[in-house]
């Protein structure tokens, strides 16, 4: 692993990861206020942080029902995100979207499909149109490993390669390997093999290592920006225990930055938590624990304030239900 290539700066990956982590932890801690379903991104923050650093103006992003980390890392207003999950009237979505459809057009997240594989074909059109308007721009296309069960992913990989579209396909793969198969639902040996069968070059990476994910995604994104055609990343991030239930639950407690100094025991925080893995990389790179604590305190305060602002917003009014269906005649 070539972790030492990238600098030991908490602003690079840790800060966007913490924005995502603290947002989701606050949601779970206040789940009683949420009427309806929601999905959290805990354990999947590595790709979100890489996205935040690699994303340029003019790029677009398609994500999934598990979108919180992508938006939080990209710098979306956490208050608007909280408000939407709470069904309040703060942002443009006005309680019509909920957790699963969060967007932020200011950072290129134009539409979030909550259907498995639903947004994948959109990335191709976004890449086609975006790169015509602004050469060098790319579409980042996130989806889970379950989406490989849908034809849309295979059709999209094929067409993106056929037309050499600038798409960075990122599979957030929280499925467990299953014997010789990529997962319990795929007969192929690996997801990279599937992508390469469609002539999309790809690489697998350990999603528990944010630096490794960043380096892999940086290289793939640079190739895509250089008109090499689409690329595929298999981000292998084991499922966080709190996501094994229908509704997320607090399986591992609030992340404590100081736990980065410990790797004893067999806890998730000791071995599988990408946030603490990044903290450990920074500590080994000479960044003092105090500085990491200060970054976390700042991000946590932003998240706390955002939740307060969301709670203070009015509930979405009934007239919002019939607004914005079609353009005014």
């Amino acid at each position: 692993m070539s972790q030492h290539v990238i600098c030991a700066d908490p602003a690079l990956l840790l800060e966007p990861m913490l924005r995502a982590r603290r947002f989701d932890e606050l949601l779970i801690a206040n789940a009683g206020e949420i009427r309806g379903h929601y999905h959290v991104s805990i354990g999947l923050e590595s790709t979100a942080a890489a996205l935040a650093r690699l994303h340029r103006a003019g790029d677009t992003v398609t994500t999934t029902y598990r979108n919180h980390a992508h938006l939080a890392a990209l710098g979306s207003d956490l208050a608007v995100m909280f408000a939407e999950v709470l069904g309040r009237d703060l942002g443009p979505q006005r309680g019509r979207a909920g957790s699963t459809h969060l967007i932020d057009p200011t950072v290129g997240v134009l539409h979030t499909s909550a259907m498995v594989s639903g947004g994948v074909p959109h990335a191709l059109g976004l890449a086609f149109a975006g790169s015509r308007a602004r050469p060098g721009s790319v579409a980042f296309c996130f989806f889970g490993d379950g989406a490989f069960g849908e034809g849309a992913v295979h059709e999209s990989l094929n067409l993106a390669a056929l037309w050499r579209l600038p798409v960075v396909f990122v599979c957030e793969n929280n499925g467990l390997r299953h014997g010789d198969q990529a997962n319990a639902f795929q007969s192929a040996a690996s997801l990279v093999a599937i992508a390469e069968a469609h002539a999309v070059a790809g690489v697998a990476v350990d999603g528990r290592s944010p630096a490794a994910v960043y380096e892999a995604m940086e290289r793939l994104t640079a190739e895509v920006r250089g008109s090499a055609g689409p690329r595929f990343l298999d981000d292998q991030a084991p499922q966080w225990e709190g996501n094994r239930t229908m509704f997320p639950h607090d399986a591992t407690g609030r992340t404590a930055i100081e736990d980065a100094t410990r790797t004893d025991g067999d806890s998730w925080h000791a071995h599988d938590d990408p946030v603490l893995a990044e903290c450990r990389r920074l500590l080994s790179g000479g960044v003092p624990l105090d500085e990491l604590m200060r970054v976390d305190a700042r991000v946590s305060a932003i998240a706390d304030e955002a939740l307060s602002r969301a709670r203070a917003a009015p509930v979405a009014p009934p007239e919002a239900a019939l607004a914005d269906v079609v353009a005014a005649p």
Partner: protein
Amino acid sequence: VTVEMAYWEARARAVSRAIDADPSIIMVGGYFSAPFNPPDGLIERHSDRIVQPPISEMVQCGFGIGAAMAGLRPLVSLNTSSFMFYGWPQVANEAPNIRYLSGGLVTAPVVFHVLAGSRRFGGPQHEHEPQAMLQNVPGLRIFAPATPADVDGLVHAAFHGDDPVLLVDHLLLAHATGPVPEHPDSALGRADVMRRGRDVVIVAYSVMVQRALLAAELLAAAGIEASVLNLRTLAPLPVEDVLRIVRNHPAAVFVDEAHGPGSAASYLMARVLEAEATRRARLVCMGDAPAPFAEQLLDALVPTVERIAGECAALLGRQLGE
């Protein structure tokens, strides 16, 4: 200058004019231009904007949606309407929600073009009326031209609106002729009175308008004067125009090539009865079976000129003469 032309000529001219005039229009799948259109040079002039996807309707439709969100105006040409079923999630569950979910910040003005209805000899899998299903999807516009002037105006409207559009085209309209104005009539939600008569009004859209006009000729020969109302668009649906004309007639017949349940015709009849605009109304829809291959079987189901005329006469307690 208003000129007389065939439906297919008007369609080709409207699409060519739009693509020539607006560099943001792209065509995804070229069936709109070929083989139904003349070799008018459109593909050669705009080869960078006319792309041929593989037979992958899911990604063809989704690609169009993505490109539309990013500022282009894609015409997704799907040919036979049942092919759209293979991209259905994108048409029914992605495009129509984008404006709503973004509070109007993001739009997806993609145009899905299909040849719907019974082309004859297509059999059960090639003859469908998906407009009936999709009128249950808020957020989509559904345009169903019946005349050369309609297709001229509605192609123009589709490319100038900000919503996803299903353009319900019909193969059997290709050789219908009629006047086309110099400037496209792109009004939405307004029905056209195609013929005036005092006894009964026939409400229809797409190819059924052409059949209703022929049925009105048969009725006239029997001394029954029929009006024909062309809906032009199913979303928006011109309910007010329908109520107004129905109130001025003693009877109303709603003709739809779709199956009755969930059709535009049955919904309009419900609105008419709810408004007490008439008490004499009748549905003439496709019989409730898949479209059979053999001609005599198909004609037992699909609304034919003779069946439309016969139902009108029966509703009035009259019989068509020999």
